[in-house]
C-alpha cells in the first residue's frame, strides 16, 4: 500500500507539472519555470514560520505570490535595465534561493525543513502523513489529497483558459489585436506554475519539479505539433516516469525523486534517438 501512495503522489504531481510545462516550452520560458521553482523557497520558509505548519492555504498563496514576483523582477531587469534575459534569470533565482537557505539555517530550531529536503523532497514519507477526519476516520495520505486537488485545479484552468493560453502562447500580437490580454494569461500561468511548485516542493524538491515541468513536455514536443496531443503525451510521459522512477529507486536504494527525474531523462533520450533515426530515414534518397 505504501508504494501505491508514493506512486500516486508522484503521478499526480508529474501530470500537473507536465501539463503546465507544455506552455512554458511553447513560450520559451523553460528556465523561468526553473527560476520560480527555486525562488519560492523563502516564501515557503516564511509562511512556515508565521503559520507554524505546512498545510495552510496562506502558505500556498504566499509562496505563489513570491513566484509571480520573481517573474516581475526578471521582467524588470530585462526591460528596464536592459539586462540580457539569461543573466536576469540567473541572478534573481540564486539570490532568492540563498535567502531561503539562510532563513532555514537561521530558524533551524523552529522549522521542520532541512536543506536536503529542499532539494529532493521527502516523497518516501508520504504514506506516514495521514489525513484524519475529526471523527478519526482515515482518508489516506494528505499529500495525495493536496496533489489531487492541485491536479484538478490545473486541469480546470487549462480547459477553461484553453483558448486564451493557446492564442497568447503562439501569437501575442494577434491576441492583443482581438482583445485578449497577454499579461493576464502570462500571470495566470505563472501563478499556476508557482502554486504547483509549492505543492510539489515537499514531495519532490526544487530541482525535480523542474524535471517534471520541462522534460516530459519537451519529449512530447519532439513527437507532435498539435497542442492537444502534446498535452496528452506530456502527461503520459510524466506518469510513466513517476511509475518507473519508483521501481528504479527501489532497485538502486536511492532517492525516489531523483530516480523519477532520471526516468524523464531516459524517456527523452529514447524519443530523441528514435526521432533522429526517423528523420535520417526520411531524408535518405529513396533506392529504386
Amino acid at each position: 500500500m505504501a508504494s501505491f501512495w508514493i506512486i500516486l503522489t508522484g503521478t499526480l504531481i508529474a501530470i500537473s507539472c507536465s501539463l503546465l510545462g507544455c506552455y512554458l516550452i511553447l513560450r520559451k520560458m523553460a528556465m523561468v519555470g526553473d527560476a520560480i521553482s527555486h525562488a519560492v523557497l523563502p516564501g515557503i520558509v516564511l509562511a512556515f514560520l508565521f503559520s507554524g505548519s505546512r498545510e495552510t492555504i496562506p502558505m500556498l498563496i504566499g509562496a505563489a505570490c513570491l513566484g509571480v514576483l520573481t517573474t516581475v523582477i526578471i521582467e524588470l531587469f530585462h526591460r528596464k535595465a536592459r539586462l540580457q534575459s539569461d543573466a536576469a534569470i540567473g541572478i534573481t533565482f540564486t539570490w532568492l534561493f540563498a535567502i531561503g537557505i539562510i532563513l532555514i539555517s537561521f530558524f533551524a530550531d523552529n522549522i521542520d525543513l532541512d536543506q536536503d529536503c529542499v532539494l529532493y523532497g521527502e516523497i518516501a514519507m508520504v504514506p506516514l502523513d495521514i489525513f484524519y477526519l475529526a471523527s478519526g476516520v482515515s482518508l489516506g495520505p494528505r499529500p495525495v489529497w493536496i496533489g489531487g486537488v492541485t491536479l484538478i485545479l490545473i486541469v480546470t484552468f487549462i480547459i477553461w483558459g484553453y483558448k486564451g493560453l493557446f492564442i497568447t502562447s503562439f501569437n501575442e500580437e494577434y491576441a492583443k489585436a482581438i482583445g485578449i490580454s497577454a499579461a493576464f494569461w502570462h500571470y495566470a500561468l505563472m501563478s499556476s506554475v508557482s502554486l504547483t511548485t509549492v505543492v510539489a516542493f515537499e514531495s519532490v524538491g526544487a530541482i525535480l519539479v523542474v524535471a517534471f515541468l520541462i522534460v516530459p513536455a519537451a519529449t512530447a514536443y519532439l513527437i507532435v505539433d498539435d497542442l492537444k496531443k502534446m498535452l496528452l503525451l506530456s502527461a503520459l510521459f510524466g506518469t510513466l516516469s513517476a511509475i518507473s522512477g519508483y521501481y528504479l529507486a527501489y532497485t538502486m536504494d536511492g532517492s525516489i525523486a531523483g530516480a523519477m527525474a532520471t526516468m524523464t531523462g531516459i524517456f527523452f533520450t529514447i524519443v530523441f534517438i528514435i526521432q533522429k533515426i526517423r528523420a535520417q530515414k526520411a531524408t535518405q534518397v529513396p533506392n529504386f
Partner: protein
Amino acid sequence: MNDLLDFLSFSDPNVRFVAFGTMLLSAAAAIVGCFAFLRKQALVGDAIAHSILPGVCLAFIISGTKNPIYLLIGATISGWISLLMVNYISNHSKLKSDTSIGIVLSVFFGFGILLLTAIQHSGNASQAGLDKFLFGKAASLTSDDVTIFGSVAIALIFVVFLFYKEFKLISFNSDFARSIGLPVNFLEFVLSSLTVLAIAVGIQAVGVVLMAALLITPATAARFWTHQLWKMILIATILGAFSALLGTYISYLYPSMPTGPWIVVCLSFIALSSIFFAPKNGILPQLKRQQSNRLKIRNENILKLFFHLSEESEDYHQGFDFSTLLESRDFYPQELTKGLAYLKSKNQIRILNNKWHLTKLGLIEAKRIVRLHRLWEMYLNKKLKLAPDHVHNDAEAIEHIITPEVERLLEKELNYPTKDPHQSNIPYTD
C-alpha cells in the same frame, strides 16, 4: 571590532584557509563569468554546475575515495558532457536552447541525487561529506583543499591573461575572429574548459545550486559600471573576492550561518544596488533622465504654442486664457497646469488678469525652439529632398535635442534661410 581584527589578522589557520580558499574560488569564477556573461551563457553555467554532481558521485564509486583530484576529474568530465549535450539538443532538434538547458540540468541533477542517496544508503563509511557538494563546504576547507583548488584557480587566471585578446574577440564577434584566421573552435574549447573547471572548483565554496551566482552575478554588477572588458573583469574579480571575504566573516561571527549562501547574498546585494542605482545604466537614473526629458519637451511645447498663437498678429506678448491654450494643442489639463507653473517660476511667462503672457525671456526661448524646428524642416527639404509635407513630424521630435553647435552648422549649411518649406518665417533673435 575585536572580532573583525581577529578575523582580518588571519591568526586562526582555519579562518585563513576558508577565507583565502573562498576568495580564490570566487575570483576565478568571476573572471570566467565575465566571458560567460558576454557570450550569453549564464544559464549554461547553471546547467554545468548541476551536472557536476553525477560526475562527482561516479568518481567516488569508481575510485572509492574522496581524493579531491579524482572528484575534480569526474566533475570536469560530466560538466563537459552536459555542455556538449546542451549544444547537441538545441542544434539537432526543434527545442530551444533554454529548454535543452533545463532538460540537461534537471536530469543530470536528478541522476546525481539518485547516485548520492544510493551511496549514502550503501553504508560506505568514507562517503560522509560527499553531500557537501550540494551546498558547498566553505567552512570545512582544509589546507589540502586550498592548495589544490587554489592552484587550479591561479592556473585559470593565468590562462585568461595569456589569451585575453583572443577571448575578447570570440566573445564579441566570433565571425570576425574566424575571418582573421584565429583558431576559434580551439579557443572556444579552451574557454569552455575554463568555465567547467571554474565551476567544478567554485562548487566547493557555494554548492551546486548557487554556483550560477558566483559565475554571473559579479559580471552583471560590473557590467553596470563600465563598458570596457578589462575594467569589467577587474571590478567583477574584486566584487567576487570581497563578497567571499564578507560571507566568510559572517559565518565566522555566527558559526551556524552557512558561508556559501551568505557569499551569494552579499554579491546579489551589490548587483541589485548596481542595477538600480548605477549612475549611467541603472534603472532609477534612467527613469530620472526620461522624466526630465519629458518635462523639458512639455515646457518647450508650451512656449512654442504661445509663439504659434500670436504669430499671425505678431503681438508676441498678448495674453491667452487657460482654456484657449488647452484647446490649441492636446495637453492634459494637469500637464498644462504644471508646465505653466514651472515656466512662471522660470520667469518665461507671467499671468495678468487670468491671462498668460510670454515674457521677453520666454519669447527668446520660444523663438529658439521654433527656429530649430523650421531649420530642421528646411534641412530635410533642401538636403535630403523630402517633400515639405513629410518633414514636420521629424522636426517635432528633434527640435528638443539640437544643440547650439548643431544649430550654427545648420544655419551655415542652409545659408541663413529666412523662410521654412511652408513659407513661414524663421524667427531669429536680434
